């Protein structure tokens, strides 16, 4: 086999527009991570290669095969979550990790993909007969793992899993009446939810409303990241020149708060560029969803695409001080392998759905 043929085979399931956006984001990520934490660039390169490999593998798995996996993966995920609740390792006050002896895994991460996969499969199975009952079952399927994750507690992941499942249900066509009804009751339930939140979760919300009330305590993160963004101005202070970032005023500057570093050093121009690439990536994902041949693929592609958006919006919103602080990294940019792998698994699934759209129709 010639090199050319090998390359063609390797590149066959890759969707060029998605790949291009992803590559732009990874390049941007290297630029920002190298400024925020230069010593981590090597590790992040390895994380990126791993994630790309996962993407490539997922891209060649056909949607039919994915449907086979949906239920077992979901059940395994739920069982692992239960195992976490029973035997998990506690770290920083939260029980999130499961020690398998040879490695530590975070089962909640699996749910980010397993959930839309499961619900899309469920709706596909009941495609011919979608009544309120099916939606109620779907909601139960959704809420069980979300509750387990929220209990760990890991509000950020719980929120993302909830969003992923909700997007499937929304795109599957749950009637507007029920949606509005849910929204109204959600507002009515707010006090109850408030009473169930942990103190630190409540304080995060209160901090959002008035970060200056506790400038050296809980408000510190958000005040410092806002200062970083604001002081960046239109053009930014330049790579490696952000005083807030380089003098360690920004907490978790290579992970959850990396957007503050980006904003400080690259300014409004750099932020706008990031928003545009995200928008194009999401747009491409929506195109893939719109053209997907089956309900399963449509729902899966739509949900994954909207999850990308949720990731990006919640993170940037929290760092810029319009949303409460939840532990969600900036998609594709933040340092760390786990979420990057999950994101590229999603990209791979989108590519597979796009590549296999004709085959299904045949």
């Amino acid at each position, binding site marked *: 086999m010639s090199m050319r043929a090998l390359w063609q085979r390797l590149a066959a399931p890759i969707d060029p527009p998605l790949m291009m956006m992803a590559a732009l984001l990874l390049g941007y990520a290297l630029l920002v991570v190298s400024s925020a934490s230069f010593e981590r660039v090597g590790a992040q390169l390895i994380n990126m290669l791993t994630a790309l490999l996962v993407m490539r593998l997922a891209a060649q798995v056909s949607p039919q095969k994915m449907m086979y996996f949906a239920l077992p993966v979901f059940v395994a995920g739920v069982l692992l979550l239960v195992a976490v609740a029973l035997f998990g390792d506690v770290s920083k006050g939260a029980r999130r990790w499961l020690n398998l002896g040879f490695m530590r895994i975070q089962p909640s991460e699996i749910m980010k993909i397993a959930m839309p996969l499961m619900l899309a499969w469920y709706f596909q199975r009941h495609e011919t007969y979608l009544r309120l009952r099916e939606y109620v079952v779907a909601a139960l399927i959704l809420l069980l793992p979300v509750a387990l994750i929220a209990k760990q507690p890991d509000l950020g992941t719980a929120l993302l899993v909830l969003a992923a499942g909700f997007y499937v249900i929304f795109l599957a066509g749950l009637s507007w009446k029920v949606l509005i009804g849910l929204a109204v009751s959600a507002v009515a339930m707010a006090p109850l939810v408030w009473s169930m939140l942990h103190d630190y979760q409540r304080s995060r919300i209160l901090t959002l409303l008035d970060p200056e009330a506790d400038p050296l305590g809980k408000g510190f993160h958000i005040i410092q990241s806002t200062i970083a963004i*604001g002081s960046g101005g239109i053009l930014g202070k330049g790579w490696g020149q952000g005083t807030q970032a380089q003098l360690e005023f920004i907490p978790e500057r290579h992970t959850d708060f990396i957007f503050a570093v980006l904003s400080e050093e690259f300014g409004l121009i750099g932020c706008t560029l990031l*928003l545009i690439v995200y928008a194009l990536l*999401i747009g491409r994902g929506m195109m893939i969803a719109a053209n997907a041949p089956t309900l399963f693929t449509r729902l899966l592609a739509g949900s994954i695409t909207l999850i990308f958006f949720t990731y990006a919006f919640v993170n940037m919103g929290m760092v810029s001080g319009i949303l409460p602080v939840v532990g969600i990294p900036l998609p594709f940019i933040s340092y760390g392998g786990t979420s990057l792998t999950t994101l590229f698994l999603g990209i791979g699934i989108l590519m597979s759905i796009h590549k296999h759209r004709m085959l299904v129709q045949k």
Partner: protein
Amino acid sequence: MEFRNPEQEIEGFQRRLTFAGGLVLLSFFLLFARLVWLQVIQHDYYQTRAEDNRISLVPILPNRGLILDRNGIVMARNYSAYTLEITPSRAGDLETAIDGLAQIIDIQQKDRKRFRKLLEESKNFESLPIRTRLSDEEVAKFIAHRYRFPGVDIKARLFRQYPYNESASHLLGYIGRINDRDIGRIEEKDAEPNYRGTEHFGKTGLELKYEFDLHGQTGFEKVEIDAGGRAVRMLSRIPPVTGNNLTLTVDAKLQEVAEQAFGDRRGALVAIEPATGGILALVSMPGYDPNLFVDGIDPQNWDALNNSPDKPMVNRALNGTYPPGSTFKPYMALAALEIGKRTPQQTIFDPGSYTFGGHVFRDDKKGGHGTVDMYKSIVQSCDTYYYMLSNDMGIDNIANFMRKFGFGQRTGVDVEGESEGVLPSQEWKRKHFKKAEQQRWFAGETISIGIGQGYNSYTPIQLAQAIATLANDGVMFRPHIVKFITDTRTGSTIPIETQPLRTIPLKPQNLEVIKQALIGVNKEGTGARAFAGAEYVSAGKTGTAQVYSLKGEKYTEGHVTERLRDHALFIAFAPADHPKIALAVLVENGGFGAQAAAPIARQVLDYYLLGKQPKAAAPADSTELEED
């Protein structure tokens, strides 16, 4: 079963997707708007806050100016020493930390007490000394154990030191840690920026009066800091400027001689250079060691100083007021000459007492002085002469004349805490008393004013200013301690007070009469014994101020307890023809002025004019002296 319509289904899905897409765009737009708000509209504000975060101004303390005597002898200086300091907010349990430190470094009970006192007065984040003046060995020991003591550190600091210890303590004053009152003074001067980082402030004496000259200009290091407050690099540095030096008119050696002359007696002495008003010595006995206050005084010493019946913290020279006794007489005589109530030759007959309004005013000499003219009245200190003179002059004539010499007014000397004293007059009585019947001046009250008793009450520095003015033929200066201030940066000097306050119009022949009488006092009068064998011609006047009213009884020393004994006074200047020094001495409960105060004056004059070192404290003359 319903029929499925795939077309419709896809259409429905796409509508939902479009709706979601709309939400995505709306959300991103919202985010974009937020970024524009932060990065464009509010940019300047956040830019400033980022700079504030990044840059810290670290004050660099200036060296405090020195205090030098007129001959350049250092009276207050700085030295660098290591201190062991605790920052309470970071040190955890303080008692445990101090106990731990005590195992490696000598920490005594008084150090602990002083630390506790500082702790009460300070804010939690300040670094407070637990031990000062560590030896090199102690520094090394602590450094080896440093890891065990968070919030404890060794610091090199400049300390104020007064090498003469108790000598001149009332004059120099001392510095101590800044308190709220000091902050008030700093704010009054709008000097807060210059006091950033400063921990000490002048508390009394010259240290307080010239605080803003001595302090110097605080320098600043502009450093970039990280979020932990650690300095990352220096951006710029403005060096501090050492405080200005004070050069005094005081002669430190003379000051010491004067203090030693007092021995363990209480009292005050003020010596002035008549031609300039410069203070040569300002003594208040007993003194205290100002060095005790610099690092914060320990409670034991503090109590001892505060509760001592000798009141060592009171500056008697400025703050104490005493009746001048017979030292008032020369001014009375001068007043009589000036307003024509007496001529020098005019005589009176003194039978030993003077009766006015049914009240008998006694003369100290039993049987009286006989025929007395002005010269004899001063030399022998005849009371009856002045009882009569007072009555002839009237209280307001006396007051108006005495006011010119500064009696009953603050001299304006450059140390705080001066009392006003009392120059009695009709007006003073009206103002001073509340009840109408007490506000009236009785003619009988005038009689004892003439011999420096009654309501008369003056500070020793007023007495010194008056005799200096007399010695200087009526040319009056504001007494002052600082001769000039030296700008340590440029070396230029700012002289203090070179012009006289005023010149009292006095007839030269009248002055001559009084001066001759004062010379006579030391030659053949009440001061003759103290000045026997002096190698210079001096002028003087003894005085005894009653503490205890004897109501007509004959005063005998042995009968009254020491604290109720009379105060002894002496005023003098020398050499008589060209005075280089004028002084006032007061010995509390010293008895007769001739016995207790004049010998002190003799030692001071001997040293200043001849350089004679006294062998011991001035002896109190034990021989019974009749009069005064």
